[in-house]
């Protein structure tokens, strides 16, 4: 296996040092690394680059099986590697739905065979995402895929009894129920955030309360039964308040925000361009501020992409006919740098926390999100914070083109991604995986 000597990189943005990677681990750090490197190590000039543990996404739609025209496990994990991710959680809303040990093992194997990022399948909470009967959560947990995150994402586990049972049942194997909080009756036909913009442009409104009411209910259920709840793509100021309150009460709840909810607002719907149509919808500037503040103070634990590739014909149409969702794997780190580092209170250690360490902990991914120390797995990423790039969906590795950041200049570029010592991205170029 190739050894890499990473010269003069800044781990978590701190003092520069050298890292020697080999045999899938970080072999040595600092002077030891230089000494141990030997002649045949590939030297990477890390001048100006920040080293972070490989990013871990808690919320990815890889679309395989079922919609391989929009993304495959291979194309999606290549996009992950290009974006600095070394592990992704693949959502269950595929066709067939990932609601059995067989399907989650299939997805897990596809990820392993592609070799670009570890794929951690998310298991459906209910059979067929139908919200009626619990799927075999235990079988998925004990399968080769070792599922720990369960979600009907795309649909809300609306039935309060079923949600209670899921929170209870998953305690047996330290699972977490990741809820797509959307009260279905309050959002029938909803197209965008309900407020001043929807009133004016005549698109059916999606009230904040439809998200907040479910989160409020779920944190109380989690408190009652002691289960572990994860709130997906939290998008409103009210949701931040509820999670803050729940955490103060000691309820076992974690929450994620997406890059698009950290940057974009419902004003973009005025274009009627469905590239800005997403579930939950883009909210107001006040909500964006509250979500940023929640991420800054730790109320929101992680940033997750909700990478949702869609075929061109499902976006190149009128708004109400279009699919919900945006791609995000290849822009997430840049958006977080822009919003939370360049224009916010975060240092690079905070970035590592919300994009790697904590998502790995929530998902039970033990070999990712590790410290950059000798003996640790060599899954890490080198970022050039000084680079600036105009987002071009056609140049991305994802098989779909629905990036809401198209044409925007964003800071930061991922230069190298290593998965257990193997370079999946080398100086900005995806490599051929060698497994």
């Amino acid at each position, binding site marked *: 296996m190739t050894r890499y000597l990473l010269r003069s990189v800044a781990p978590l943005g701190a003092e520069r040092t050298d890292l020697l990677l080999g045999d899938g681990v970080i072999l040595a750090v600092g002077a030891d690394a230089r000494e141990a490197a030997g002649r045949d190590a590939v030297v990477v000039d890390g001048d100006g680059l920040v080293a972070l543990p490989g990013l871990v996404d808690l919320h990815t739609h890889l679309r395989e099986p079922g919609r391989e025209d929009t993304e495959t496990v291979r194309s999606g994990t290549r996009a992950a590697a290009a974006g600095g991710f070394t592990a992704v959680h693949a959502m269950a809303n595929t066709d067939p739905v990932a609601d059995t040990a067989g399907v989650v093992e299939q997805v897990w194997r596809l990820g392993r065979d592609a070799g670009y990022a570890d794929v951690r399948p998310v298991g459906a909470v209910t059979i067929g995402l139908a919200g009626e009967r619990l799927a075999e959560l235990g079988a998925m947990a004990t399968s080769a895929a070792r599922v720990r995150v369960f979600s009907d994402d795309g649909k809300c586990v609306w039935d309060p009894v079923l949600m209670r049972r899921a929170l209870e049942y998953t305690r047996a194997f330290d699972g977490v129920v990741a809820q797509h909080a959307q009260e279905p009756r309050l959002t029938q036909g909803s*197209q965008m955030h*309900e*407020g*001043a*913009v*929807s*009133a*004016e*442009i*005549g*698109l*059916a*409104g999606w*009230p904040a309360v439809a998200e907040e009411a479910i989160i409020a209910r779920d944190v109380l259920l989690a408190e009652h039964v002691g289960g572990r709840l994860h709130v997906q793509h939290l998008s409103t100021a009210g949701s931040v308040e509820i999670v803050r309150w729940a955490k103060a009460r000691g309820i076992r709840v974690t929450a994620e925000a997406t890059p698009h909810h950290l940057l974009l607002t419902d004003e973009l719907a005025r*274009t*009627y*361009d469905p590239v800005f149509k997403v579930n939950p919808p883009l909210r107001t500037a006040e909500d964006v501020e509250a979500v940023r503040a929640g991420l800054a103070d730790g109320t929101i634990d992680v940033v997750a992409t909700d990478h949702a590739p869609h075929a061109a*014909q*499902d976006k*190149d*149409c*009128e*708004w*109400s*006919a279009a699919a919900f969702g945006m791609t995000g794997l290849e822009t997430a780190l840049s958006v977080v740098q822009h919003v939370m580092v360049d224009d916010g209170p975060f240092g690079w250690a905070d970035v590592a926390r919300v994009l790697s360490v904590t998502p790995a902990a929530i998902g039970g991914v033990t070999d990712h999100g590790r410290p950059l120390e000798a003996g640790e797995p060599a899954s890490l990423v080198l970022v050039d914070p000084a680079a600036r790039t105009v987002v071009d969906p056609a140049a991305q590795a994802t098989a779909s083109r629905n990036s809401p950041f198209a044409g925007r200049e964003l800071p930061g570029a991922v230069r190298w991604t290593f998965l257990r010592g193997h370079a999946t991205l080398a100086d900005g170029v995806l490599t051929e995986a060698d497994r």
Partner: protein
Amino acid sequence: MRHLLDAGDLSRDEAVGLLDVAEAMARTQSRQIKKLPALRGLTVVNLFFEDSTRTRISFEAAAKRLSADVINFSAKGSSVSKGESLKDTAQTLRAIGADAVVVRHSASGAPHRLAHAGWIDTPVVNAGDGTHQHPTQALLDAFTLRRHLADGTGDLQGRHVVLVGDVLHSRVARSNVQLLHTLGARVTLVAPPTLLPVGVEDWTCDVSFDLDTAVDGGAPAGAPDAVMMLRVQRERMTSGYFPSEREYARRYGLDRARVDRLPEHAIVMHPGPMNRGLEISAEAADSPRSTVVEQVANGVSVRMAVLYTLLAGQDPAQAAADITRTETR
């Protein structure tokens, strides 16, 4: 003016200019030979993804009286009713050589997509999109109001128009609130709170839940110069927007008693089609104050003005002068 998508896009001068052109067009319509040669050789496509015979024939008459060729394309009920069909249809129109597209669609923003997605480069006229906009309806309403309340010239400065009914689902209400404000009129919306959008507080109008107060001039803006009734779909009742037709008619319907309490000069408007007995009683609809039939006739003049202004590529003031010249020749 490249497209007409949104009543809110019109400046005061553009709107007054269009109304002036419409007046000039209306005068030509009282002549024996109604047809003008203005758009000879040009093709207007009426692209209707949603049934509306009234609006379609109004646009068709307007285009034909300007000597344009008209192609009617109705996509309702065929396999092309959603999805990429809008794009495919647009490209078909480009291949056919349409010079202007008049589009009606059940999806809010569909005309906006047609105009701005890069699929075609012809002028687009919004003939009603979802619950968003219906700008030619607002123009014909303003035209009607101006004839009754401002001698057919200038704007509507200081006039007070009360709009009553299902504002939430109404493109007519959205367009009228914007255009009437642009023209200097005051607007009061009257509706049950369930039929007003969240966010209506930001609109350039007053809001009331009580029709009697508005009729009696107790609303913030005082006595109305016109009352415009909006169509209420009976299905709204089953979705819980109001408890029953009877209760709606009692609280928000315009009946004879309410008409009688209006100031003597005030007119009663309705964009049609009317639900007699629900939002408007038969006596109110047929009263001498009702401008319902007149609105239909005015619709043709206003749509002639819009097509002429867009296709002749002139600003409305210039267009008005030109039409007046052909008229006196």
